[in-house]
């Protein structure tokens, strides 16, 4: 138990929030500093 919840419950909460965030941060890092010309203008 940790802060009133089982480790399994904390694991679920952490994965629920963290998985998406981790993917998003990796995506932003890959696109940081990308010049505007590489984007597709409408």
């Amino acid at each position, binding site marked *: 138990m940790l802060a009133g919840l089982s480790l399994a419950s904390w694991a679920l*909460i952490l*994965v629920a929030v963290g998985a*998406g965030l981790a993917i998003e941060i990796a995506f932003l890092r890959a696109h940081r500093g990308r010049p505007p010309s590489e984007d597709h203008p409408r």
Partner: protein
Amino acid sequence: VTASATIVGILVAYLAILLAIGVWGGRGSGDVKGYYVAGKKLPSWVIAFSSNSTGESAWLLLGLTGMGYLVGVHAFWVVLGEVLGVTLAWVFVARPFKAYTDRYDSVTVPDFLADRFRDRSHVLRLVSAFIILSMTAAYTAAQLTASGKAFSAFLGAEYTTGVLVGAAIVLFYTTVGGFKAVAYSDLLQGVLMFLCLLLLPIVGIAAAGGWTAMLDSVRAQDPLLLEPMGTLGFTPAGVASVAGFVAIGVAFLGAPQLLTRFMAARDTRQITHGSLIAVLCIIVFDVGAVTAGIAGRALYPGLADPETIYPLMGSELFPAVFTGIFLVVVLAAMMSTTDSLLILASSAVVRDVLQKVIRPDLPQRTLARYGKATTVVLGTGAIFMALGEVRVIFWFVLFAWSGLACAFTPVVLCALFWKRTTRAGAVAGMVAGFVATVAWVLFFKTGFYELYEMIPGFLAGLLFTVGVSLVTEPPGGAAEEHDAVWAEVGPAFRPAVQPSAGESPVV
């Protein structure tokens, strides 16, 4: 000033702002592209909030808080599914979809499909229009039902009054202001939902005596409410429940009302910037709703209808001024979905059937006027459904959510990621996904541990899209076009490299 007067004052102020947005948005809605995709000029924060507040209807505030109340920590599987769904949509789907739809100058998702598969027979458009109309009709009615219930719960007003007031406002700004008004009102509504779902769980936990006291109270009612598998445990029903909760997020990858946001972005940079806003926003939405529900369970055990926990907490834990805001937020959640569904259904009729199939010669202004008239007709139909004897309830929101998603998501994903996809495969996948969803609900669901229809619907759509594509020929030039789009978009996790002559593009 009485509490009711304060609540009504806040409500009137909110509705006045929406009317003003409608009038302001109307200036750019004189042609089809302006009315249905705001001229493709929306910035990142608008598409991010608009996408999430469209995806999250009044179900988020009433349904998901109720789920947190009913099943406890088990409801975090919904959070996992939705956060992953939103993230994957923005990281993997949005940019190639934007590139394709800019190339085709698409205004609707059926536009994209028709051009991607060179569908001159209009079968894809007609099938799409049928599915969109059939699913959005009752989905919209369910949202108006939520408006009626919210007015009853917060103000003690007549259910009918709530339906009519909610419908009148949303119809006005959607009809007059078009997609621009829809997207900017979604932004306002999304911000309100964000703030509310940040505040409600914090106040709820504090009112329950703090984190530990809240958990103790819930544990005393049923310790399994604090376990990931909930009261069902590791049984077939428990696993089916987890799979269904996670699958709710699949719709973010291909539901047409959400893809329209990517299409309406100013350029792909707006998508890159908007992705972080969208992911943070959905985390606050979902974690806030589930945690508020758990706090509500500690505070008010034994509710007959768990979906009343949100209005109950809003009226019991806050002063009148906040109660008014909480009512406004329910209306915001309802309206931000209803407006998008109305404009989606209107585009299916006017753009995909009238302009592209029946009367391509009609001038833009006439088509835009037809679009507005269609929005009014569809909205009026939804009002009658919501006022009918059989009131549409929240399970239908999840049903319609999956019906739209299962018809479009497998086909859209294959169209974007698999160059071998064919027109026949796309038609088969759309029909199979839709039919499987309906058939599962009608005939099979109760016999398979109440497994959520999104799973069989999506799998059927994917199976038929791939299977039929493998035995038919892809349209000429589609493979080369696919390579060109992906060379332009580049991979999600590495900087894009333009291929030199003769080199295969990175996919």
